[in-house]
């Protein structure tokens, strides 16, 4: 039959910071992603469509580090990247160093399906996305209090010379 696995990042938040409500929200977010892909596969759909659907759901979820939960750089901006690969023929697509596409995985898939290339970065990647109808969002869509606060804490820690032992900040 079929199998679908998902992850929302490693280096989870410290147990001491986890609340029952927060834990339930993480489980619910993972289940939504699994269900999005399961529906595709149960209906006889392809693995490539299933992973696309699952990752889009995770990208839409601010809890996880992806499009809407993207971490900030030290300059206070967000940069997104994504890749997708089809095991049938090793077709692959990837993008990096961009901010704007609502779902970065769709940008990567467009590179795979609509270009002769594997990896596009920067401004030309953005232009390629616009030319291929990828949905964009304003910077405000990607702002989350959680990620912004994490940036401020990390920068303050660096200024004070402290070391950050919180894996969730190191891995997003």
């Amino acid at each position, binding site marked *: 039959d079929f199998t*679908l*696995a998902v992850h929302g990042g490693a280096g989870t938040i410290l147990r001491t910071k986890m609340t029952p409500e927060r834990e339930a929200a993480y489980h619910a977010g993972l289940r939504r992603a699994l269900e999005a892909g399961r529906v595709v596969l149960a209906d006889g759909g392809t693995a490539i469509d299933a992973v696309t659907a699952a990752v889009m759901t995770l990208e839409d979820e601010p809890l996880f580090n992806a499009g809407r939960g993207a971490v900030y*750089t030290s300059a206070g901006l967000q940069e997104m990247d994504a890749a997708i690969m089809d095991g049938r023929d090793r077709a692959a697509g990837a993008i990096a160093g961009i901010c704007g596409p609502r779902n970065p995985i769709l940008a990567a898939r467009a590179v795979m399906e609509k270009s002769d290339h594997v990896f596009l970065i920067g401004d030309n990647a953005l232009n390629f996305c616009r030319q291929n109808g990828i949905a964009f969002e304003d910077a405000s869509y990607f702002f989350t209090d959680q990620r912004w606060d994490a940036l401020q804490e990390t920068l303050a820690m660096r200024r004070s010379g402290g070391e950050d032992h919180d*894996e969730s900040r190191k*891995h997003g």
Partner: protein
Amino acid sequence: TVGAVARDRNGHLAAATSTGGMTAKAPGRVGDSPVIGAGTWADDETCAVSGTGHGEIFIRYAAGHEIASRLRYAGQNLQQAVHGVVVDVLAPVGGSGGVIAVDRSGAFSLTFNCSGMYRGVVTGDGVLRTAIYDEPLVDFR
């Protein structure tokens, strides 16, 4: 980072990974997520892999491709290959994190070498199974 791997009913595999990164990373820094063979890999003959963790180490050790190579050339099964890379290779050199993987038979592995990994799996029985820390998967029907 977020990611997904799948095997469909026709036995085809795929992997997708999106937007990794550590908070306050250097502008322009790219981790393993978009690097084919590091954070993302899929090949019907072996397996599909999506990684999450210390990207520089995952890139240097070509984590996804290394797992596939162990299936292809070393005769290891998926769990042996994933454990060998995530726990035996990446962890000792500071490559904390984990991977999700599925092979051509539909076997899967959700393996990490740090405090936890937000993870889940569903197979043909339709039961959604999720976990966060080092604990058994929780079933949800």
